């Protein structure tokens, strides 16, 4: 209570700026007068009486200081004083301040942004109740390449009926498309199919209205629909009375019964949640081998993933057609979403920590250099009686002010980056929505900044403890202790080493990217465009539409060739299985191939070379004998050393929506083309088969295909004309974005590009900062040696002699730093292996070019100080000493 009152009184005095000097002076005067009178009465002479009184009172200044300290808050008063002084200092050397602040801003900003992103993506739990009980269910089999295998309709039904591990289990079709007509321009909708109980399993309720009922799940053609929050917000204007509205999806009228809650992590671009009906079910859901359904489940409390895996293996393994080594793998749902980017993100975090390290070291070195320049000032202050503790406090304050000046724009920069980030196209990262500046990241980064502040304050004060006052004052400038010079140099060496590691990593990624961009994907992306067309045709009546579109677009000026196909080079293709006419077939081990239905000019448009046989022609239609073109991978794998032309194969197409027929028709191989990549350039080229789209007896390809156009000039200039021609055929046909094939290829490289550009940016930043560091130390030490240089020049050293001395010093540090950095890189680049393409983690080209680059940069950083020393005026230098 007393302490509180005392503090309040002090604070009040401090804030009001109230000073008791006047009162104290009066009281002391009065005290002395009384004492003097007393002394006079005791018989002293007036002068002696006064003298004795003063003596008895004691040191007036000390009393006044004690009094003052007692009255206000001395710590804060000093702090205010230091703050003012620090700001004045900053004002006096704006270049230095700006540089350090900029380096810290970048370091802190970049770190905060990256930490926030990575924390959100990798660490933040999914926004579902007990989300750690949610698992994705996959099958794996070494006999089938150990890739993750999805489930078929019967697989799921078995799981659902016989498992003892899940409180709920559901299946979903991640993605298919439907047309949306009747509300303005026709559009393409992204649909996700979910089985009964899917939302209950997640533990979420509807945002508006309701989800599908059990009765709706028992009808194959159900006229109700649940829309996504995203669709409702952006396409339906967030209308609160949307329940009951009718929209035309896939040609049929659907009544909206509910709006799903926002699910940005799981389904960032879904418009419609359609039901996946299991009993009864569509024909394609009844094939055991048609494995395209994703399965997700919520474990019962107390059941572990391993127990559930055993449970499901016991269900899956006895199923017909399963390989004997098949096993079930439960992947935590979050891991299922973000597992593919974990390594990349971890590497980026490491890189960004290196950047922060470089920035902090550099700022510390800069401050150290400056305080060395200020050691004369410090010596004067020390000799005038300033306490070392007080000086340390002042230096800490200066460092702190600098950190605050750098932190605030750093936080702002990070915030800005996080606002802009989700809007970047094709970043290839999951869970991008809802990223916010992370409190922990803020804390950690500012914590590091504060630590650096301590370093700023601590390192110079170390120097002062060893400061020789006499010599500093005599020389009038910094006394160069070798100890702190060495400390300073080792800071710069560490900085160069860190930058070296970063630039080698960036070099490796750049080299990989360069290799990738030169990969032959089997098609010619320049002057080629594509767009996805979803129709409402599932039978032969759709043939007219495609024929008219091909004719309409093909007759446009500027169009060299036009084709349709249900695969998109560089993007996606369906998987089929093959049946051979020339050998016995094992139905349990049907060889897989990429399968694509295409129109006759498909290879003319894609620019894929023919190796033998012929391309399709207009004679290959619904009435002619069925034919197939295979690629050289298929030829090599299935007919090694043989000519496949004229052989017969059957193609079993699997995939969502396909209607199963009995045995496939046998087709004659009429041509072999070069292999094409249907993923990014780094994906392998797999065996593939191509068939005339008119020969698909299921007519399923008529429902959706992509249009491909080879143009004379810029393909995107045709955008408008193509849309007009398509709408002339069918006015309510949605036309998705028309994209150049270069864009498609570039999209497939997007995940690689963002990690590449981030790492390159970090490396560039580190290089820049190191250049500043080298510049700072070289200028600082040459400044120290000005006198020596002056004498050398005076006794006849040439300017180039002096320049060489300076360069040699900078080069020495650089070489040590580079060797250290290369050593560290040799040990660490293995971690990058997963991100590299076509080169080893110890790729000599990347290592050498990074070393040369850093060497050149540090030489450049030495140029200014070298020239400055070389052109010293010896007379002025020596006189100024």
């Amino acid at each position, binding site marked *: 209570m007393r302490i509180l*009152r*005392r503090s309040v*009184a002090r604070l009040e005095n401090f804030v009001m700026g109230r000073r008791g000097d006047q009162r104290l002076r009066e*009281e002391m005067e*009065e005290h002395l007068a009384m004492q003097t009178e007393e002394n006079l009465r005791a018989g002293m002479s007036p002068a002696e009486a006064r003298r004795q009184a003063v003596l008895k009172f*004691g040191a007036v200044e000390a009393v006044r200081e*004690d*009094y003052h300290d007692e*009255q206000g808050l001395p710590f804060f008063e000093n702090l205010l004083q230091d703050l003012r002084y620090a700001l004045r200092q900053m004002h006096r050397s704006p270049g230095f301040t700006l540089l350090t602040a900029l380096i810290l801003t970048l370091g802190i900003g970049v770190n905060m942004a990256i930490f926030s992103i990575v924390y959100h993506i990798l660490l933040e739990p999914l926004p579902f109740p007990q989300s750690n009980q949610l698992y994705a269910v996959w099958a794996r089999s070494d006999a089938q390449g150990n890739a993750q295998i999805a489930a078929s309709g019967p697989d799921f039904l078995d799981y659902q009926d016989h498992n003892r591990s899940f409180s709920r289990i559901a299946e979903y079709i991640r993605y298919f498309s439907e047309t949306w007509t009747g509300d303005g321009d026709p559009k393409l909708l992204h649909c996700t199919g979910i089985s009964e109980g899917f939302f209950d399993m997640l533990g979420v309720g509807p945002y508006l209205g309701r989800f599908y009922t059990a009765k709706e799940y028992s009808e194959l053609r159900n006229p109700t629909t649940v829309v996504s929050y995203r669709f409702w917000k952006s396409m339906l204007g967030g209308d609160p009375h949307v329940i009951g509205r009718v929209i035309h999806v896939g040609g049929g009228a659907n009544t909206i019964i509910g709006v799903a809650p926002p699910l940005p992590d799981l389904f960032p671009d879904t418009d419609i949640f359609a039901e996946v009906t299991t009993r009864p079910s569509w024909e394609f859901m009844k094939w055991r081998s048609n494995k395209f359904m994703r399965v997700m489940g919520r474990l019962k409390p107390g059941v572990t993933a391993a127990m559930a895996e055993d449970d499901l293996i016991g269900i899956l393994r006895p199923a017909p057609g399963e390989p004997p080594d098949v096993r079930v793998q439960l992947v935590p749902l979050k891991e299922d979403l973000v597992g593919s980017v974990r390594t990349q993100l971890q590497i980026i975090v490491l890189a960004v920590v290196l950047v922060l390290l470089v920035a902090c070291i550099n700022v510390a070195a800069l401050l150290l250099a400056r305080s060395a320049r200020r050691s004369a000032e410090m010596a004067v202050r020390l000799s005038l009686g300033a306490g070392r503790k007080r000086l340390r406090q002042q230096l800490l304050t200066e460092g702190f002010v600098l950190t605050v000046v750098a932190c605030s724009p750093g936080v702002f920069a990070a915030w800005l980056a996080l606002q802009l980030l989700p809007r970047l196209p094709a970043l290839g990262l999951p869970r991008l929505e809802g990223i916010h500046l992370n409190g922990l990241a803020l804390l950690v980064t500012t914590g590091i900044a504060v630590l650096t502040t301590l370093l700023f304050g601590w390192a110079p004060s170390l120097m002062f403890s060893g400061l020789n006052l006499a010599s500093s004052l005599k020389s009038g400038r910094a006394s160069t202790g070798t100890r702190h010079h060495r400390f300073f140099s080792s800071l710069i060496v560490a900085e160069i080493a860190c930058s070296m590691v970063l630039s080698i990593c960036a070099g490796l990624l750049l080299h990989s990217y360069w290799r990738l961009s030169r990969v032959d994907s089997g098609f010619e992306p320049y002057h080629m465009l594509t767009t996805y067309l979803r129709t409402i045709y599932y039978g032969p009546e759709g043939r007219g539409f495609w024929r008219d579109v091909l004719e309409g677009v093909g007759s446009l000026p500027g169009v060299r060739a036009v084709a349709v196909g249900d695969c998109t080079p560089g993007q996606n293709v369906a998987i089929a299985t093959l049946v051979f006419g020339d050998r016995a077939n094992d139905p349990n081990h049907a060889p897989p191939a990429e399968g694509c239905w295409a129109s006759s000019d498909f290879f003319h448009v894609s620019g894929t070379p023919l190796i033998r046989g012929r391309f399709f022609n207009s004679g290959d239609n619904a009435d002619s004998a069925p034919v197939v073109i295979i690629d050289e991978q298929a030829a090599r794998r299935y007919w090694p050393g043989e000519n496949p032309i004229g052989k017969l194969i059957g193609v079993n197409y699997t995939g969502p929506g396909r209607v199963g027929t009995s045995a496939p028709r046998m087709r004659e191989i009429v041509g072999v083309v070069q292999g094409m990549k249907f993923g990014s350039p780094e994906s392998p080229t797999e065996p593939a088969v191509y068939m005339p789209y008119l020969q698909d007896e299921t007519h399923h390809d008529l429902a959706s295909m992509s249009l491909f156009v080879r143009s004379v000039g810029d393909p995107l200039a045709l955008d408008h004309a193509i849309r007009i021609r398509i709408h002339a055929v069918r006015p309510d046909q949605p036309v998705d974005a028309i994209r150049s094939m270069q864009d498609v290829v570039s999209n497939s490289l997007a995940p690689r590009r963002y990690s590449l550009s981030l790492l390159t940016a970090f490396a560039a930043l580190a290089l820049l900062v190191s250049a500043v560091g080298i510049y700072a130390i070289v200028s600082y030490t040459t400044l120290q040696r000005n006198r020596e240089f002056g004498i050398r020049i005076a006794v006849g050293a040439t300017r180039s002699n002096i320049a060489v001395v300076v360069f040699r010093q900078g080069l020495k540090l650089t070489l040590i730093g580079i060797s250290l950095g290369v050593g560290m890189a040799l040990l660490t680049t293995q971690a990058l292996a997963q991100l590299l393409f076509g080169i080893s983690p110890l790729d000599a080209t990347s290592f050498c070019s990074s070393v040369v680059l850093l060497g050149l940069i540090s030489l450049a950083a030495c140029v200014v100080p070298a020239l400055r020393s070389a052109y010293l005026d010896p007379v002025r230098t020596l006189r100024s000493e």
Partner: protein
Amino acid sequence: MKQKKDVQQGTLALMVLKTLDVLGPLHGYGIARRIEQISGALLSVNQGTLYPVLLRLEQEGAIASDWGPSENNRRARFYRLTRAGHKLLEAEKHDWEQTAAIIARFFEVKAEDLP
């Protein structure tokens, strides 16, 4: 060194309180004189150290002060005990007596007294 100063300040504060309790409102010089008379050594030099202590007590609310005429009709600052000051004095006095008693007992104990 510092501890000694703290102890002195603490004692000084207690003496100030007791002085004001016994003599009523008094100016700084009067307090100093009184303490000097009774304690002898403590304030025979460095009387000035009294003033920061007075300020502290005042900021704690134990005493209050006002300008008033001194014996020879000059302006002097008079300090008086507040109600809180009375309480504080009682508490401190109690503490002090307790401490003194414990210390005294310690000094009285001889080795053979211990069981």
